[in-house]
């Protein structure tokens, strides 16, 4: 199952992913439309010691937000692995239990009057989530976690090899 993986060191904090996310969740799917309607992005670039750190939903194996949901709206799709409170028979009531439960702070109240929690839905209608497709620095990738881990190991190994003067 593919997941959105983050290469924090590649992120330069340009916020293109946040804008692309907002646009993807706007009625007319444009950045202008999102800004006009006040649609927020569903991932966050946090500044830590002057460095940008992308924070987004991990679509956990046993999601705390799903356990906390007292309407049944927040569900994890067994097929896709997507965790979302939208598009189900049960609807969100804005009780904020999921916000209290999420260890990543990836669920937030919707802006404006509507009482509803919003979070990453991993763009179910797209092959690649909007944030990943938009990132100009390749800091986000939509890949199998195993591939991500393998790639990480390889890059560490390469770095060590270079340090030791061994041709990679």
């Amino acid at each position, binding site marked *: 199952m593919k997941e959105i993986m983050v290469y924090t060191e590649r992120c330069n904090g340009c916020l293109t992913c946040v804008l692309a996310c907002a646009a993807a969740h706007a009625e007319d799917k444009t950045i202008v439309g999102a800004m006009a309607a006040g649609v927020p992005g569903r991932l966050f670039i*946090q500044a830590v010691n002057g460095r940008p750190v992308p924070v987004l939903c991990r679509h956990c194996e046993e999601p705390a937000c799903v*356990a906390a949901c*007292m309407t049944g709206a927040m569900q994890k799709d067994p097929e896709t692995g997507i965790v979302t409170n939208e598009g189900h028979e049960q609807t969100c009531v804005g*009780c904020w*239990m999921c916000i209290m439960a999420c*260890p990543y*702070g990836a*669920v937030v109240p919707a802006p404006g009057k509507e009482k509803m929690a919003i979070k990453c839905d991993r763009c179910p209608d797209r092959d690649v989530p909007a944030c990943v497709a938009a990132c100009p620095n390749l800091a986000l990738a939509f890949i199998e976690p195993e591939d991500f881990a393998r790639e990480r190991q390889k890059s560490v190994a390469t770095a060590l090899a270079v340090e030791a003067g061994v041709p990679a």
Partner: protein
Amino acid sequence: MTAYVIVGNSAAGISAAETIRRLDPEGDITIVDVEKTPAYSRCLLPNYLGGTRSEDALRIRPRDFYQKLRLNTCFGYRVARVDVGEKVARLDNGARLKYDRLFISTGSSTFMPPVPGITGEGVYGLRTLEDAKKILAQAGQARRAVIIGGGFVGLEAAWALYRRGLEVTVVEKMPQILPQQFDACAAAILLREMQAEGIRFILGTGIKEIAAPGLWEKLTGKAGRGVILENGDRLKAELVIVATGTRANTGLVEGTGVKVNLGIVVDKYQSTGMEGVYAGGDVAETEDVVSGRIGLTPIWPNAVAQGRVAGYNMAGIPREYGGMIGMQNAVEFRDVPAIAVGLAQADGDGYEILKEYRPEHNLYKKIVLKDDIIVGLILVGDIRQAGVYSALMRKKAKVTRLKHRLLRPDFGYGQVLSA
């Protein structure tokens, strides 16, 4: 084939059933409940009362849930007694359900304080859909409502009835609302909001009696009861809601050897110690990770977590419960959200308190630390990072290096990741 019997068709019971079905596709699972409705959310009853949620929208699972998971349902029957020796649950109609594994998630009931008149008509608890329907029927012909108890249930009921157009008075024995969860400062913000809306509060006094309509009132055709307070005042109301707390429904294991304190005592595996008998949810006592205290934790997320742990163990896969915080609550009135987690009121020696209070913005943040570990949290107005703080609390993480950042508006998981 293993026979599983689950007593209680709510958060814990449903969670256990789903877990068992996932792990044991062949198992014979039966859910028993006194209530006849498919599983619904009690937390949403105030929304139903207030008219913002229909009865159908209270269901927590799709219509075909029981068929799809092949769960036998036995609704409308009470388990009168459990025979732990024979491994049989006896229903109140005399039927016997044989089990290999039994999960008790019978929840709790409204506690009616022992004052005269409390059992009279026009006086209700708010715990079940049936309660809510009775209240609604009465609300149609009522002008004034008195809510006894200023906790979550009381305030949400007050808010709902107020939205229905009733004159609502809340009576709370303690000097502040939400005395179990919030400190005086947070309670004052929420109180001010509800008062500004038009709900009346009488704090610091309990009730002495609920008086039936007097002879004169009956003769003149004026309905209504009097709620007599400890300070002698008499409030008039056609509708009284009692929300002073709950008691665990442990009757079915009385005299069986299953240990009961305030609730059913279970170990880390949600087992009662009797062979094949497990318990979870509001009816069971578990350990709070922050205080280390064993007690009832009548909140939704913990019921779901306990049901899941019980489900694993009942299906033969050992799994421990732990690391959950007993006290976590979220509430919102008039667009001011509020969250309290853990020892939010802790004060005095050994505790360090970080605070930010901006009354003009209805903003209040308080973090209680002990030895640089977060043990309590209150967020009013801005609740966005509540889960990040709670996770630090659950993990008992030392936040020494993060401390100066905790209250900053840009605090988030990124900081935790990089600390």
